[in-house]
């Protein structure tokens, strides 16, 4: 049975920002990220050696490319879409929780929704609703 956890108002987390919340069910914490206006949530535990993944820096990564003169170059790509663990610097795609290199390792992710205040009220009463407005909306995590 999923539990809903209120992260906070959407207005507090503009694109590029993030936070870590510590629900009772997940004591090591869950990182919540706004990537380009969409919210994503990842467990704050790196699947590699258990480092506090979400305390790492959100950034892009370098990628090899062929330049116009056909010489090898490097370019900075996917800025704001990647988080690097503060231990060992393994890089994960925030949208999917997958490593950016080829591996079967994946960090656990959680569904995030944005709910309007009136929806929140109805949710509290156990009534099914559909979101109608994003004014004063709240970020909700399902864990």
């Amino acid at each position, binding site marked *: 049975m999923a539990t809903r956890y209120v992260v906070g108002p959407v207005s507090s987390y503009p694109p590029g920002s993030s936070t870590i919340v510590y629900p009772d069910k997940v004591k090591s914490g869950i990182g919540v990220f706004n990537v380009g206006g969409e919210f994503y949530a990842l467990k704050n535990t790196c699947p590699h*050696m258990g*480092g506090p993944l979400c305390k*790492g820096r959100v950034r892009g990564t370098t990628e090899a490319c062929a330049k116009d003169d056909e010489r090898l170059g490097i370019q900075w790509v996917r800025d704001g879409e990647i988080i690097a*663990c503060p231990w060992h*610097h393994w890089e994960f795609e925030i949208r999917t929780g997958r490593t950016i290199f080829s591996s079967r390792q994946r960090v656990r992710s959680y569904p995030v929704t944005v709910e309007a205040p009136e929806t929140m009220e109805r949710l509290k009463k156990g009534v099914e609703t559909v979101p109608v407005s994003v004014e004063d909306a709240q970020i909700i995590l399902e864990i």
Partner: protein
Amino acid sequence: MTATIARPEEPRSQGGTVEVTVIDTDVHVEPRSFEQIVSYMSPPWRDRAISDRVPFRRPTFATLEGGGRGDSIPDDGSFLGSDPEMAGRQLFVDDPMDYAILLPWSFRGFTVDPLLDTALSAAANDWAADTWLSKYNTENRYIGSITVSVEDPVGAAREIERWAGDPRFKQVAITHYGPRPFGHPMYAPIWEAAARHNLPVAIHFRGGATQPLGWTPTGTLQYFVEYHSLIAPLAYAAHMVSFICNGVFDRHPNLKVLFIEGGFLWHQPVLDRLERHWKRTSHELAAKKTPREYIRDHFRFATQPIEESITHPDRIATLFEQANAAKLLMFSSDWPHYDFDPPSKALPRSLEPEIRKRILCENAREIYNLPKTRPADRFDLEAGRK
């Protein structure tokens, strides 16, 4: 000098004992500032504009995110690894270890002047003795290294003599780079002094004005990933063979050499090649044993950064076992650097429990002659180990 750090005056006795299960052979601690080290220097060194001649921060290889573990950087902007309370919590509570072997990181081989290097090493030893090995060591969890300069072997031997017998220091620490590989007779005074006092010699790679980080046998490197993959194993392979072929261990049968942060499994193919050539072309040497026996009797390797297999994690334990990890490998974390390995997660899961125990604790316990149990303290209480 160090009055800003509040510590309990007396060890609060918790009663009881704790079994020693994890010994960390590579922990880097720092002073709060470079001036703190300079304050331990005597004239003329202290008065010769040391800070200008010995830049504390120098251009070097760096990772994209910096060299520190992201959650180990002190909030007050002081150096990584300089906060004793944070160190105590992260080492002895979070994923608890019993003892931390300290290898102060900043002061080895910075200059082009061997005598200044020795003066800096001496200051680093005095500073460590005064802080991490006494004031900050109320719980007696930290074990010191006598830092010496390999480029000043006579001064290095004198520095070893100055601390030998002090129970706070249990090994000699040197860097990876010297004018010649370490079997060369020029280093004899260092090995003699270490062997005389039964002190193992730990080698940790390091850069400085005369100790370039990025030199390979065929030129310099560009990238951090090249440097961190190659430099230590290349240098350690050269030293390993040089120590063996020059008879250092025949002269000092009790001498132990520890390769820190340079990997482990690479030594197997190097040893195989040496053994094959040994049979045919070692007649000019006075060596009494085979290379495999010298390695078994004289070398140990620290785990971090531990060899991992992304594709076949189940097979890596077999490689460790084949390479005699049960005897040669000692756990290390490299706290507080970015590639910190926690003791509960670092080793391959499929290792035999007995081998795991030897790597995490027993091999280092024998090298440093540490006890099987120790008094419980406040960290154990916090860690729920008592």
